[in-house]
């Protein structure tokens, strides 16, 4: 399997997807830094407030506006940026949502009605998928500005790793769906949809919800109705961008059974949604870096080298544990390759140190950007 540079050749958007806790943010940042070091103008959009990562990129904090990482940091790290640039931003879903409302609202009054509505205020933080939708929205906006050669998106650590795929669709369905029609004018349209008895039904519903909630809902949908077309149009364009051949989805996972199973599932979902799949990055793999099969007596050799039988036994026991982990990782990755039917799998070993600075990202990149699996194994063996 070749490296990230080849995978992303000619691509303008790279979406890193996967469930939580698999090193997605770090991988996205490493890819962005690596592509910048190869002369590209790159922006990485992250959702996680990874403070230390922001620090390491020399940014006091990552805000809703992209900021450039100081080129001096690259030079200090001995990296020749050769004309490339690295920008980073942290997405704020609420701010982005507000901004979209401001742009889409037909007039100031509507804008203010929406922004001050209680339903809206919770919507932008609590509606399942709204954070995902806003990530897509921001991605689209920056893409449309054409200021970067490549955008790398770290998808939200969502409850379901797939939420963002249909987030745009879900939001438009939400605002234009029946719910909208029902609550926009409970008396009028509700009557038409539910027929006779609608008034009674709403009065039953009010017993549960209270009057105000229904009123707020109605107000919110009325204010929002004028913006439905704008939202639908944007959602459509976001979807076009995601399915465009110049976009590449990378699935990030860990080598254990469950994350691997999720990666397989995710790959299938991407294919169903006709999203361009690029490859899988497996983080924290326990490599068997060298041929561990020998014909000698390991215990005897260790005891001789250490001149300590007891310590030799513990070193051997530790080795057995790690070999078991490596063997298990190997089996899981083989299963992954078999299931997704491609060898587009890049393995990054379990590094001895946590990655939290540019040097660490570059260490990860030795693997991500290596041109073949053989080269990766050689790097791991010499580490």
């Amino acid at each position, binding site marked *: 399997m070749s490296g990230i540079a080849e995978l992303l050749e000619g691509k303008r958007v790279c979406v890193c997807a996967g469930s939580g806790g698999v090193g997605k943010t770090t991988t996205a940042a490493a890819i962005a830094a690596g592509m910048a070091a190869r002369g590209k103008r790159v922006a990485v959009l992250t959702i996680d407030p990874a403070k230390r990562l922001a620090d390491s990129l020399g940014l006091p904090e990552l805000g809703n506006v992209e900021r450039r990482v100081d080129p001096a940091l690259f030079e200090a790290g001995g990296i020749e940026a050769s004309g490339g640039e690295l920008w980073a931003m942290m997405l704020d879903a609420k701010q982005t949502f507000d901004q979209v409302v401001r742009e889409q609202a037909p007039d100031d009054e509507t804008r203010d009605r929406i922004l001050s509505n209680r339903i809206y205020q919770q919507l932008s933080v609590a509606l399942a998928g709204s954070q995902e939708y806003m990530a897509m929205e921001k991605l689209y906006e920056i893409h449309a500005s054409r200021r970067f050669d490549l955008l790398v998106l770290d998808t939200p650590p969502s409850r379901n790793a797939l939420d963002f795929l249909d987030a745009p669709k879900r939001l438009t369905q939400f605002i234009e769906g029946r719910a909208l029609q*029902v609550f926009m004018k409970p008396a009028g349209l509700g009557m038409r949809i539910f027929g006779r008895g609608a008034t009674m039904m709403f009065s*039953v519903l009010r017993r549960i919800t209270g009057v105000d909630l229904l009123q707020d809902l109605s107000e919110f949908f009325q204010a929002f109705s004028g913006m439905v077309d704008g939202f639908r149009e944007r959602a459509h364009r976001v979807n076009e961008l995601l399915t465009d051949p110049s976009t590449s989805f990378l699935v990030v996972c*860990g080598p254990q059974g*469950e994350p691997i*199973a999720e990666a397989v599932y995710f790959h299938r979902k991407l294919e169903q949604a006709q999203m361009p799949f690029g490859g899988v990055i497996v983080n924290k793999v326990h490599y068997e870096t060298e041929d561990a099969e*020998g014909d000698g007596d390991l215990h005897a050799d260790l005891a001789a080298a250490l001149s300590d039988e007891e310590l030799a036994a513990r070193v051997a026991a530790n080795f057995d544990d790690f070999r*078991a982990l490596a063997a298990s990782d190997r089996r899981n990755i083989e299963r992954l390759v078999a299931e997704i039917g491609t060898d587009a799998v890049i393995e990054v070993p379990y590094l001895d140190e946590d990655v939290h600075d540019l040097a660490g990202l570059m260490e990860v990149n030795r693997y991500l950007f290596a041109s073949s699996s053989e080269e990766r194994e050689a790097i791991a063996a010499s580490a």
Partner: protein
Amino acid sequence: MRALLDKRLVIVTGKGGVGKSTVSLALALAAARAGKRTILCEVASQEHLSHVFHSSEVGYHETQMAENLWAISIDPDESMREYVLLQLKVKAMRDLLFRSRIFTYLAAATPGLKELVTIGKIWELALTERKVKSGRRYDTVIVDAPATGHGVGFMQTPRTFANVARVGPMRQQAEALDRFIRDPKRTGVAVVALPEEMPVNETAALERDLAEEVGVGVDRIYCNALYPERFAEQEVERIESAADRANGVARVACRAALAEARRARAQREQLARLEENCAAPVTTLPFVFTPQLGVADIEGLVEAVA
């Protein structure tokens, strides 16, 4: 530790991939072994895609798993239905609502409503007088909380919702839930973390946010998957020089030992940071080397969590 499992409701939270489900299971087993009638709640259709792969028997019904131990997977749609049933005593009214599907629309239109009824169901399980007819009385309810980007999200739901619904029965309901969650006598919070840079930072931030935004304290932090310190410092030096002398497999084994020692040490530093930056007491749980967690491995954790 007694204190945590003496609460009626124990919420186990933390970021994805830290072993929250395993710790929840170990806690539930520990409570059940201590003679408490315990139920372990999973929140359905959340992070756990595991359902998709090894679909278990656990559904919305309370299923007995072991002596004193039951499990339930809480489905928001089922919770919503149950909620309406409990609210409307008149059968004709319920039928009217369910036939029209208007409640489905309400759930779709009202942000946070599904999350609210999910917490509502958890609360209902923890009541000494269950609202569900002939509901079993539990001593301890353990919740494997959904992993969210912002850890407080789940626990903040009732308060968030109380702000959406200004007055009315739903607001009262939300306020009752909020009080229950914030009552340290009844509700306990455990956070699962890993001894790594980012997870330590996130755990400290979560503890602070829970205090400031929700008004709850963390009772216990579990530092999961800690490597054993197999080699003393002076032994590491001897292994280093042995690695230079040895060949073949013995050399590889020495290097594996050195890698383990480095990681174990780096983890101890992170553990120290965790203890320094968090107010709650930290309990460590060992890294389990067997790839598939078996019954014996869980046994070890049951003792460690309690």
